[in-house]
């Protein structure tokens, strides 16, 4: 079956669908692993039961989420070969290595220790069990690093040469691939953005329970941890995003120009809040902008020259031969804004929340609250917000809990769409990367198959999350409070039911 589409179109849609979907689970997994580990550490160190209940609550949500992350990740490992065999042949010598490293070092770590953690409550002494969740967390972060090093090579290929005879790119400096500034900047940005996701998720769910005055001690702690995470991660995401932007401006000027829909180069290039472009005519018809900001984002100076889309297209035509080297400008333009907008909205709400719930020493005695009370939200000195406004904050926090996740998705859509028509910038075009032997019917089959399956699983997953979110933190049992002292479990009662079973 052949449709009147470019051969790469369906394969790109499939990659987009499966990858954006996979990445809905990744940032939450990365951040919740570490946050859960942090809460469990607090339990082990203080023996305060609220930390154990928090660990069990967030740990459960983490597990429901990571299950989806793991299984959708399997597709990622194989779809390069399935739909992008010419890409695989061309770059395998370089791109395959970080993928194999990821599997051998990070995936094994993650998957083995997650099993130990899930089933280990009554099999492992407290501290060893705690170490397991930290191992999972390290695994998730290592995994992110290797895959981002691989992706960075597609954004900015380094440490390679082209072997004309074999018709492929070959690795010459692996260390350079792993440590180039693109990889480091992407890693920094992706990890901080992941923590923004986890922080906002925690804040939203804690707000939900606090608004209903339920599970207060656990949710107070969670709210605070979430807010601090949002504020720190939000700040670092902005800083790392700025760094990544500057790296990108040097390495992929077209992407920067497309992010702004800056058609002609100029000094003191503006940043538009809003623009409606006319791609065919190569200019914007409506635009609201602040001068100088784009120059600053690109080059740390409000007056620098930023080349425009048309200039770069011309330069690339001279360098790479005739062709259209422009990505989809409206997608690049809007995805860049939505990334920043959704992410920074959560950051702002986090700062507001942290101020509203500030600790006792900044509050007059009358407004201080105890462990088992819902904190007052205090905007100005000496006066708590009215119940109506308080409720309003909780609701906003709940309904914006996925904002950073949306920002993450748009960020990746920007990164990948903004690099087009290249799959490896300046080296290999996307249209030359597809599998020549795979028919459009096959790609369509797998695309429809994955999309339907993923849609069903999304419904299942969200329903489960909602169920466990509503249920709140579990009550602790005798067994929870008396973890074993020996590896494999204490042998006093051989017939005792397992603490956790499938």
């Amino acid at each position, binding site marked *: 079956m052949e449709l009147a589409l470019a051969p790469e179109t369906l394969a790109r849609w499939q990659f987009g669908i499966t990858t954006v979907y996979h990445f809905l689970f990744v940032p939450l997994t990365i951040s919740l692993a570490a946050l859960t580990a942090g809460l469990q550490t607090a339990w082990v160190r203080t023996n305060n039961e609220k930390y154990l209940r928090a660990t069990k609550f967030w740990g459960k949500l983490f597990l429901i989420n990571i299950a989806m992350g793991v299984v959708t990740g*399997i597709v990622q490992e194989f779809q390069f070969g399935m739909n992008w065999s010419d890409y*695989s042949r061309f*770059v395998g010598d370089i791109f*395959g290595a970080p993928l194999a490293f990821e599997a051998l070092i990070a995936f094994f770590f993650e998957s*083995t220790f997650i099993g*130990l953690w*899930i089933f280990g409550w009554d099999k492992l002494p407290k501290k060893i069990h705690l170490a397991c969740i930290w191992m999972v967390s390290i695994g998730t972060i290592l995994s992110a690093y290797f895959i981002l090093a691989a992706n960075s090579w597609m954004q900015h290929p380094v440490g390679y040469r082209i072997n004309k005879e074999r018709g492929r790119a070959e*690795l010459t400096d692996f260390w350079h691939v792993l440590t180039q500034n693109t990889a480091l900047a992407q890693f920094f940005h992706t990890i901080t953005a992941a923590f923004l996701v986890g922080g906002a998720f925690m804040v939203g769910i804690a707000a939900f329970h606090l608004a209903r005055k339920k599970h207060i001690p656990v949710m107070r702690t969670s709210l605070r941890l979430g807010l601090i995470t949002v504020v720190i991660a939000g700040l670092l995401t902005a800083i790392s995003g700025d760094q990544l932007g500057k790296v990108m401006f040097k390495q992929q000027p077209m992407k920067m120009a497309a992010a702004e829909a800056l058609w002609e180069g100029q000094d003191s290039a503006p940043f538009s809040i809003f623009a409606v472009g006319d791609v065919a005519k190569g200019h914007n018809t409506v635009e609201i902008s602040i001068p100088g900001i784009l120059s600053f984002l690109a080059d740390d100076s409000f007056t620098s020259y930023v080349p425009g889309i048309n200039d770069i297209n011309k330069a690339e035509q001279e360098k790479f031969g005739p062709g259209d080297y422009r990505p989809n400008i409206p997608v690049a333009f809007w995805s860049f804004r939505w990334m920043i907008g959704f992410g920074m909205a959560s950051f702002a709400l986090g700062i507001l929340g942290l101020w509203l719930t500030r600790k006792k020493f900044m509050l007059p005695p009358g407004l201080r609250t105890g462990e088992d009370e819902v904190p007052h939200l205090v905007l100005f000195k000496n006066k708590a917000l009215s119940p109506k406004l308080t409720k309003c904050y909780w609701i906003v926090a709940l309904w914006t809990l996925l904002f950073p996740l949306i920002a993450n998705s748009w960020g990746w859509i920007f990164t990948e769409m903004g690099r087009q028509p290249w799959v490896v910038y300046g080296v290999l075009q996307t249209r030359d990367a597809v599998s020549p032997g795979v028919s459009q019917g*096959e790609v369509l089959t797998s695309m429809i198959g994955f999309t339907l399956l993923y849609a069903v699983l999304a419904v299942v997953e969200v329903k489960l999350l909602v169920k466990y979110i509503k249920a709140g933190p579990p009550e602790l049992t005798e067994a929870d409070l008396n973890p074993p002292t020996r590896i494999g479990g204490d042998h006093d009662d051989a017939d005792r*039911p397992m603490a956790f079973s499938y």
Partner: protein
Amino acid sequence: MELHDVWFVLIAVLWTGYFFLEGFDFGIGVLTKLLARDRKERRVLINTIGPVWDGNEVWLLSAGGATFAAFPEWYATLFSGFYLPLLIILVCLIVRGVAFEYRAKRSGEKWQTNWEHAIFWTSLIPAVLWGVAFGNIVRGVKIDADMEYVGNFWDLLNPYAILGGLVTLFLFTFHGAVFAGLKTAGDIRERAGRLALKLGIVTAVLALGFLIWTQLDNGDGWSLLAMIVAAVALVAAVALIAVGREGWSFAFSGVTVAAVVAMLFLTLFPNVMPSSLDDAWSLTVTNASSTPYTLKIMTWCAGIATPVVLMYQGWTYWVFRKRIGTQHIAEAH
């Protein structure tokens, strides 16, 4: 022995690890319908692999990733060529992982039954398809001068490959039954042993047919040796389960899996994916491999990581060494 030969061996090792480990967990999945009499027994079986199935599956991702890095052409031809079978395997593995994690997260009868059906089918189907895939790899498929697979889906369903699929299905189910005998307690343990005996005999008949066919088609002295090891180990595993020595039986069913994989890779070498159209178009360890530089880096990585992985995965099995019986399964949670 050059680096690409080393990597041929390492890829074989990774697949061996995968089939050894996920082999018994596919088997357990199939046994949830063959061996378990009720939900509680199904849960006993599922929980024998509960803490480990995820780590076991990473052997597949490692084999895939390592093939991409060490033999990009092999990775590209194999996964674009065997597109639909691989798609089915991927869908199964996705549903299977979710089924394990989500089955007990709701108490509804329909919810749990549906996920139990899913566990059975998504264990059975990949267990067959991996055998079909490897049967085709060894037998050779239509690969043209550009290393592209030019056959279709139905070409992959030839008698030899289908026999290969039945062999992996029965071998894994046997391996799983022995594992169930080793890991469960009570009534189900006795029945696991008896079922393993029957499965072992069927496996022996099918495997013997498949391995002799393989040997006659492509074999040499080394593959013959591997075949003999496989046959002896399988007979030993069956005999040992018959006398109730589950631990030893499991060791030998594991050796059988390893020897079968070894035999397939030995008949393959120095090809990695022979072409049935023209020998000159076959993918070999030389024309499909990465540069020595990449292989050297990969060798360091695998050389250090694999033993460490074996250590901590081994430790996991030790932590969860206790047998599980119906009394260990909590009613609801």
